[in-house]
């Protein structure tokens, strides 16, 4: 299994190019190829969960030369999230994307995006991380503007400009780190930085990284692109962007670099907690006022990412106890997984609704539960889950984060987190009232249930929503334990440089 680790990037990239070639001969082949590729990746990622941490040297070059790939608890967790959601999105796209032209190009860009995200997650080399970050970003810029209508192009352009600034910020930070340490290998760099300590140059790098990765993760002062970009993309892409991309490119990279390369320190901690709290409140408040199904979900993404950020910020504070730290990390990771599941579910639901009714204006929808029972049931499971009602998964992760905040003595932040929970509930009640219940408009009397290939991923995601909630103890021991062990163990990460 270990020697096939680079295939996580090689397969999607290769299939992306094969796809464009083969669809010149056979139109249908692209669908199956994309389906098989993502399916294989999802299977491989689940298998990878049960393989212990190891490092892989591309081309057989010994570190610190050559490119190092890292597999530990954190990257395995992210790989599972990315590839499973990608697989489900592809299943959804099979039918949904027939409304668009140029399907082969869509699959190619999708696979490029998946390949880029996998690359970001598996790499242990800072510049390599930047390259894969850009591959995923460029593919996502193109996918946001895929419809080529006015709004889509504008959103894409806005996203491109802000994303470009973020990328240059990240590159600037990497250049600075290289000038300080003289290496790009992450474990090696961590060793060098321990000798240097946090001086002014490193503080500048931290600021650049918080700006760059914060923009990719769309935390509040840098969030302007997200509410435009995510609703403009085709629904499966919205699911990927909101569910996975902002986590793989933003949150994961912050986690990896702050915990493992630069190391926990109070400066980053306070910045991230403040930004997290701000994101939670602003995103939540803005979401209430939205009249567009997908726009509301997009603002809700900002708010939910705030939870992850605040918990990570707490865990980065070296001053608090080990137990609280572990609690915060478990909360952050679990909420990250949960958010990927239910936000993808909700975006795919909005796509199914749009596919059948042709609109996503909340004012025009209503009473759909009688016409599309399965879709709407999954939709309500998703909203209850994101609002944090007890049996579902969202409840547990929010509870853990709030508990961690209160244990560490951050009473104000804890209160904000609880308050935002209620705000979330409020806007999802509005969503439910406007889409599921109420009077069915005349125009939609002919609406039928969505096709099978669209319902299947919805059902799977809904089952995951319930399952992750009920089987929480199992999830913690099997999936999250390895990840939080990794995050707290910086020395272990540095040892990867020596081990094989």
């Amino acid at each position, binding site marked *: 299994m270990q020697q096939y680790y680079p*295939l996580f990037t*090689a397969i999607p990239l*290769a299939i992306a190019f094969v796809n464009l*070639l083969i669809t010149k001969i056979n139109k249908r082949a692209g669908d199956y190829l994309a389906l098989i590729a993502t399916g294989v990746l999802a299977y491989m990622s689940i298998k990878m969960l049960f393989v212990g941490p190891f490092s892989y040297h*591309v*081309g057989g070059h010994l570190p610190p030369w050559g490119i190092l790939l890292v597999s530990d608890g954190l990257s395995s967790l992210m790989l599972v999230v990315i590839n499973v959601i990608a697989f489900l999105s592809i299943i959804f796209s099979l039918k949904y994307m027939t409304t668009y032209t140029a399907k082969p190009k869509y699959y190619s860009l999708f696979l490029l995006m998946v390949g880029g995200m996998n690359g970001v997650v598996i790499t242990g080399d800072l510049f390599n991380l930047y390259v894969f970050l850009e591959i995923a970003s460029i593919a996502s810029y193109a996918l946001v503007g895929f419809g080529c209508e006015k709004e889509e192009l504008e959103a894409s352009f806005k996203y491109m400009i802000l994303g470009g600034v973020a990328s240059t910020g990240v590159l600037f930070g990497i250049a600075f780190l290289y000038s300080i340490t003289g290496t790009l290998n992450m474990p090696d760099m961590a060793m060098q930085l321990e000798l240097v300590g946090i001086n002014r140059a490193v503080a500048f790098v931290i600021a650049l990284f918080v700006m760059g990765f914060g923009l990719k993760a769309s935390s509040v002062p840098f969030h302007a692109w997200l509410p435009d970009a995510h609703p403009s993309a085709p629904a499966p892409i919205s699911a990927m962007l909101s569910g996975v991309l902002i986590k793989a490119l933003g949150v994961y990279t912050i986690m990896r670099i702050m915990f493992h390369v630069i190391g926990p320190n109070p400066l980053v901690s306070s910045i991230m907690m403040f930004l997290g709290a701000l994101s939670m409140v602003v995103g939540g408040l803005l979401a209430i006022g939205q009249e567009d199904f997908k726009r509301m979900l997009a603002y809700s993404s900002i708010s939910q990412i705030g939870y992850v950020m605040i918990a990570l910020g707490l865990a980065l504070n070296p001053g608090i106890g080990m137990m609280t730290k572990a609690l915060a990390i478990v909360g952050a990771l679990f909420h990250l997984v949960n958010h990927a599941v239910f936000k993808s579910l909700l975006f795919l639901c909005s796509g199914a609704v749009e596919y059948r009714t042709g609109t996503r204006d909340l004012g025009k929808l209503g009473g759909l539960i009688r016409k599309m029972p399965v879709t709407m049931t999954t939709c309500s499971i998703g909203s209850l889950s994101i609002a944090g009602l007890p049996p579902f998964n969202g409840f547990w992760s929010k509870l853990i984060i709030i508990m961690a905040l209160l244990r560490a003595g951050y009473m104000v932040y804890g209160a904000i987190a609880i308050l935002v929970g209620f705000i979330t509930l409020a806007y999802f009640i509005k969503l439910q009232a406007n889409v599921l219940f109420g009077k069915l408009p005349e125009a939609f009397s002919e609406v039928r249930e969505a096709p099978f290939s669209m319902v299947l991923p919805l059902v799977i995601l809904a089952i995951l929503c319930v399952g992750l909630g009920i089987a929480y103890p199992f999830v913690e021991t099997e999936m999250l334990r390895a990840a939080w062990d990794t995050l707290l163990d910086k020395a272990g990460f540095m040892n990867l440089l020596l081990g094989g």
Partner: protein
Amino acid sequence: MHDIEKEIRESKSGMTMIVKTIVRFAMGIIILFGAYIVLYGHLTPGGGFAGGVILACGYIILTLAFGKDIALRKLSDQGASIMDNSGALAFIVIGLLGYTGGYFFLNFIDHGKRFELFSGGIIPLCNIAIALKVTASLFAIFIALAIFGKFISGLVEEEE
């Protein structure tokens, strides 16, 4: 063979006869120089990207001088797309072939003698793959933007 001669002489698109004649004369040498930069990328400055840019510039000059009809006959947009994808694919396949020695991107070919052309293992092969990709995609970008820009300017004239 005389067909293209006549066509070039009679076609109204592109630049004047002088530019056309010079391009006809220099085209082969431009391509040769691009190929030289690509193939000697592991010995001298240059490599897949730089050489690919020169090759693409050759085709762009061809387009500027003769108009897009004749240039597209030399390298059609479909052909560019196929070349683009197969170049990228070849690069990944070279990486995957490294598994014959147990590692992704292992330099599995004999490294050869220093300063000889046939040396460096997979690096010249990678350079060729990259050059294919870069040539085709730059040319495709140019063609796409040129055609689309023409379409846009037509739109503007209509407005006015």
